[in-house]
């Protein structure tokens, strides 16, 4: 196994992990600050991808598509929060699960009615080729852009949460909601803001991954499960936990898809090795989550007081 191979797979795992982070960060904030389980988070990712594809198609530019998609999804998230989800905060988690699950179904069919079952989204042609990172390692330019955006947003979120007043409010709300309210924080506006930020992050992930995966109905459901696993591992309400959890999950998934089948191919026929690798990687992710829950039930970086 050459160093170039390991480096390339590390980059792949990192890229996947950073995109998962964008979803997990929003999800953990919403769960942490508003104590709401939002199953429709994956649908916001889907809506973000569709809106990006639609704007990109209308304007002919991927960049405008991405920016437009993010802005529209943030707006959509805010409207959704104010109109529908606000009534769920005081209710128990089961009601939230049921209501947001219904929202998934409604959004799936709603998007299908407005945009159809899928939309094309192509990366800008300038990014179609490879970049020579090292002699012998050519990495796709577009994936490097995804990595850069992912890192940039992680840094931005860190600065936002640690260094700004809004971030302090968010941390206070995540740590102890009742006390924050008692201290005079405008909880309603804070919640709308957090939800809009979460939706915007989903849209960035959706728009960036659109050219690699397909922009289609139901694209959010698989990635949502991984996002929940990540926030459980990382700790509810913790952005740092979401980042660490996401990179771990991204790494395990990539390992499962490549290194494990490599090993298994020594003693299994290729079809079995290729199928068993990703399955074992999946199991590994859930086993890891179970271990974390047993040893550190609050997650790796708990924020709750």
């Amino acid at each position, binding site marked *: 196994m050459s160093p170039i191979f390991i480096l390339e797979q590390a980059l*792949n795992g990192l890229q996947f992990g950073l995109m998962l982070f964008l979803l997990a960060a929003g999800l953990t904030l919403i769960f942490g600050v508003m104590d709401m389980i939002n199953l429709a988070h994956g649908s916001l990712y889907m809506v973000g991808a569709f809106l990006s594809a639609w704007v990109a198609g209308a304007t002919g530019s991927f960049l405008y598509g991405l920016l437009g998609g993010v802005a529209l999804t943030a707006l959509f998230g805010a409207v959704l929060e104010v109109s529908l989800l606000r009534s769920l905060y005081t209710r128990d988690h089961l009601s939230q699960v049921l209501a947001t699950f219904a929202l998934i179904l409604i959004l799936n069919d709603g998007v299908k009615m407005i945009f159809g*079952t899928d939309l094309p989204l192509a990366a800008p042609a300038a990014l179609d080729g490879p970049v020579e990172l090292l002699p012998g390692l050519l990495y796709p330019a577009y*994936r490097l852009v995804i990595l850069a955006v992912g890192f940039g947003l992680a840094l931005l979120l860190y600065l936002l949460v640690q260094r700004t007043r809004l971030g302090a409010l968010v941390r206070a709300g995540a740590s102890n909601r009742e006390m924050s309210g008692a201290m005079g924080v405008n909880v309603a506006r804070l919640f709308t803001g957090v939800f809009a930020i979460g939706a915007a992050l989903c849209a960035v992930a959706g728009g960036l991954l659109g050219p690699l995966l397909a922009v289609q109905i139901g694209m959010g459901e698989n990635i949502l499960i991984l996002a929940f696993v990540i926030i459980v591992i990382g700790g509810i309400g913790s952005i740092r936990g979401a980042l660490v959890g996401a990179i771990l999950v991204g790494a395990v998934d990539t390992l499962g898809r490549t290194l494990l089948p490599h090993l298994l191919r020594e003693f299994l026929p290729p*079809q079995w090795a*290729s199928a068993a690798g990703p399955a074992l990687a999946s199991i590994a992710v859930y086993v890891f989550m179970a271990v974390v829950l047993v040893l550190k039930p609050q997650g790796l970086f708990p924020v709750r007081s």
Partner: protein
Amino acid sequence: MIESLQRKSIIAVVVALLAGGAVAADKVKIGFVSTLSGPSSALGIDIRDGFLLAVQLNGGKLGGLPAEVLVSDDQFKPDVARQLFEKNVKRDKVDFMTGVVFSNIMLAALPEALDNQVIYISANAAPSPMAGKDCNPLFFAVSWPNDAYHEAAGEFANQRGLKSVYLLAPNYQAGKDSLAGFKRTFKGEIVGENYTKLGQLDYAAELAEIRAAKPQVLYIFLPGGMGINFIKQFVGAGLGREITLLLPGFSADQDVINPVGPAMAGLFNTAHWSPDFSNPANQKFVAEFEKEYHRVPTLYASQGYDAAQLINAAVRDLKGKLDNVEATRKALKNARFDSVRGAFRFNTNQYPIQNYYVRTVGSDGKGGLINKSFSEPILKDHGDAYVQQCPMK
């Protein structure tokens, strides 16, 4: 007196109704279930458009009977396809079922037709078990055996003196058939064999593996959206510079050429049909398809068109009598029609015996790309490797 007359007329009406079995049907009903949404929808849409074009060119009729084609979308889900088959067979009482693109979806839904004595004519998927030990008299493949394009590609690789090949396909029946077919004819070294998840669209991990394996040639079977994404990412990872990409027609037809673009130029692929075939049936098909749908037909469209023409010939030979399944089956097996691919006949297992050709993606003279075939077939009068296991004679 009047009561006796009434009774006689009632008896007369009942007798006439009972005798109705020997009269020709008033229309032919066809259930068409295919993948019409999602990343691989272009395939199902083309089969449908080719099929409906043939019906239209026959004046809305097949075999002289008005044709009613009930089209529905399986959404790439086997359970949805199964429900649609059940609806078409039990509620709509269709005479034939056809249309499915993917082998796994077809295998899941097929029992709904075959167990209820409804003939299925495959315009695409034709898995190897059904050519051999699982062959069924009610199943006809008008496309090709699943292994065929890949056997042709293996033979082409031999002719070109290619030495080392890395293989990639999705992990489902057609994927397994494809690589088994390639390995059956290819005489060189297989440096790697990898199976991906059906429907997978991100191939970063697999591409890194391919780069590390350093093969001379990469042979993939990735139909529809899977192939489009893979080839784009293959080019994006800079692998096209050292590795030659060899493809079956499924990953190099117009539905892939258009989204991928110039990177497709010069790629070799194998198929049973090409848009530039000069036989009169094909020239008419391509011209009419372009006129009606404003795009170049893919091999999937040619298969849909041929499926309709097959039904047309069989129903014509039956003079419209579709009540006897065994007679219909014989008519299909012996039907003579002008296929757009040229020579066509059924093997004893009701899979085609035909030629396979090598094609290359070249300029269409209008700034775009199109497939051009070599006139000499790479495999001539080629059946399949499983026919011996089928008890049908």
